[in-house]
């Protein structure tokens, strides 16, 4: 278990009103994949402001934006996970994520909805042998409403490791 995962599980705070320890997760769509952020880490959802490119910054950094006077680093989610996807559409939304250290902007295509993720529907990265990126806590399965359909999968992101450290 990598240290990142330990910290991340701490941020996956269960909804106190839930008896089963369900975790509210914001599902977003970026580059054909569905990702989930612990709702507790999402500060704000914005319409993308103008982006200032930062030369020499890591690949996944789209640039910086100004949110009410604060300069915020904007990340491209698929690139963070080294998924080489060509961004075809302009970003639809920017999430402001609190990684515990600073606010980080994450550009996404669209915001889907908030799911209450039951603990037994989360498969932690540490339990999988696959070489998943450090930014990933695990994979969440959202049971489809239709019994026969495939459950939807989402990649649960660890906000703490987003450029932290």
């Amino acid at each position, binding site marked *: 278990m990598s240290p990142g995962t330990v910290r991340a599980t701490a941020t996956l705070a269960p909804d106190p009103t839930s008896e089963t320890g369900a975790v509210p997760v914001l599902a977003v769509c970026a580059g054909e994949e569905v990702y989930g952020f612990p709702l507790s880490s999402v500060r704000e959802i914005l319409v993308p*402001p*103008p982006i*200032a*490119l*930062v*030369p*020499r*910054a890591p690949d996944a*950094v789209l640039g*910086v*934006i*100004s949110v*009410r*006077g*604060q*300069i*915020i*680093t904007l990340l491209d989610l698929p690139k963070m996970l080294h998924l080489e996807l060509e961004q075809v559409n302009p970003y639809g939304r920017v999430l402001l994520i609190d990684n515990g*250290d*600073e606010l*980080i902007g994450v550009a996404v295509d669209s915001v889907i909805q908030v799911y209450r993720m039951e603990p037994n529907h989360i498969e932690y990265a540490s339990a999988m042998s696959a070489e998943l990126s450090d930014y990933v806590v695990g994979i969440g399965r959202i049971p489809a409403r239709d019994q026969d359909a495939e459950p939807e999968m989402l990649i649960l992101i660890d906000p703490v490791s987003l*450029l*932290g450290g």
Partner: protein
Amino acid sequence: MSDPRDNVQQEFLAEAQELVEALSRDLLLLDEAYHRDERVEPALINEIFRSVHTLKGIAGMFGYRHVGTVAHALEDLLDDLRLGRAAVGQELLDVLFDSVERFQRLLALDDPQSPGEDASVHEYIAAIRSVGMEPQAEIGDPLDKYNIEAEVLAVLTEYEEHRLRACIREGLLLYRLRAAFDLAAIDDSIESLRDDAQSDAEIITYLPSMEGGNEDTIELVVLLASGVSHEELRTKFESRYGTIEPIEERTHLPTLPPQATSIPAAPPSMRAHTEDESAQASLRSVADSVRVDIRKLDHLMNVVGELALVRSAVNRVVDGLQGDSIYRQSMMDLDRIGRSFERQLSELRTGILDVRMVPLGQVFNKLARIVRQSARDNDKQVRLVVTGADTEVDKLIVEELTDPLMHLVRNAIDHGIEPSSDRELAHKRSEGTLALNAYHKGSNVVIEVEDDGGGMNAHKLRETALARGLLGAEASQELSRQDMLNLVFLPGLSTSKEVTDMSGRGVGMDVVKTNILRMGGMISIASEEEIGTKITITLPITLAIIRTLIVTIASRTFALPITAVREAIPYVPSEVRSIQGREVITVRGETLAICDLARVFGLRGPSEREGSFVVVGSMGNRELGFVVDDLHGQEDVIIKSLGKSLSSVRGFAGATDIGDQKVALVLDAPALFAEYFDGPEIVPTLETRP
């Protein structure tokens, strides 16, 4: 402040400014006491008198003729007030308040002798004289009521005699306290007596007693006026000072044996009764702080930056020695010393930032005057409640904050707080309350402007925005109540039914918002109809403003700190030669190395044109030309750090807002120089803030 006046002059101006601020503060207290029908503290009037007196003195020394003349006339008026020859009244207060603005204007004059001001100064002096003329009806001499020894009365100063009369008129009782004081500690003892007496009694005078005392002690007879009973005063004073007895009315005083008890106690000086001495005392009391020109602090900050450069230069030398085993021990030592140096440097930087901090009270005092003026102009009753005036923020922020806060306060009084009659109908206190609160929250400072007025009508805001075409009909349907309130920050929206003189021209809140955002702050609004409105401003505690040259590189905007820029010249690509693999041009016969920023930053696409200007930068004895596409003039920008996530990216000192939510990166000239001349591996990165 832009003209180069000499230091002494600056010192004078700073001190005069402080005196005027003190005057303004005290006048507000006086005004408050008057409007609450409270007894006006004689000490307060003395304090005001002293400020004006000192101002007169120093204005004379520095040739500020007009300031001196006005202060002189005011001093006469205040003296009359002090001695009861004039009474505090609305008209008199107005004249006194007027002086604050006048002093400030006169102090700002380039020519302190300017004859252009003669007329207005004379007019004002006439006004001062006319309010001072109100005679006060004297109804018999109240001193006749009491049997006070003639020898006591004979030595009272005019002021003491006035206070004595005034106290008797107020119905206070007179007491005589006999106490022995240790000669060695007499100043402290009397001061502590003053402190103790303050809440219950006024000390009229103290005289050495004819009786008692020995080599080490002196017995004083203290004449007190108090509204408190004899019993209470006894419990309070007798154990600590000595016997206290009432002075009886119109009867013979029994001669009591002196009971000397010597109890040496705490704090300062036998108050000098001549104005000159007391003025000096007040000057001494501020001697433990110094005033510093903010530019000197900016300079120090730059020196800290230079030191960081020196440090990295040393690092380079050390790196050059690496691998040579004979230096091993020395290398370790150097490394340790280097780290200690960095720690101290960072402490130095923090220290300088700390010195720049001033209390928000400076702005709040100005606002208090505006509250008073606005309330009077609008014929409303407003009570101002201030908390957190001692909250400290960067001097620059305090200055930038004045205008936005002024606007918010005026708005609150013009449009927020209702006239008394309306308030009574709504079962509110007839007097409206305006609260200014300040407090620290993390590395931010929060300032709230809150009124208990009529609040804002969110739906009316939406209607107005719709009517003015600031909002589409469709969009307007989806607005939450908070969204509607936020419409007030839109340019061109005014909600007041009538446009008043001071605010509500519809240019208010958007400008306030822009100013706050420019400082890296936030502004939010909460309002309930019939209950009131609260505007909350959150600001960083400190900010760094630097002057920059705005340039474009490959159609992107960057800011280059002006301190590193010597000049800008047109760039002619055909004139570029190559020497030892480096591109150079010739400027006035001298060779200048050039650095194409678009290429260095990897911004230039193959088809894009080359830059058209060379910005010649200089750092120490090195010069380097930066090739840029276009120049957009100079601008003062607030530099913000790029955040931890980008701290490893070199060549940028930070970023700044350039309006319209757009961001420009601020180039780190020292780093770019070092990178060009010394190679990219050992680029020093200058921290822009601690």
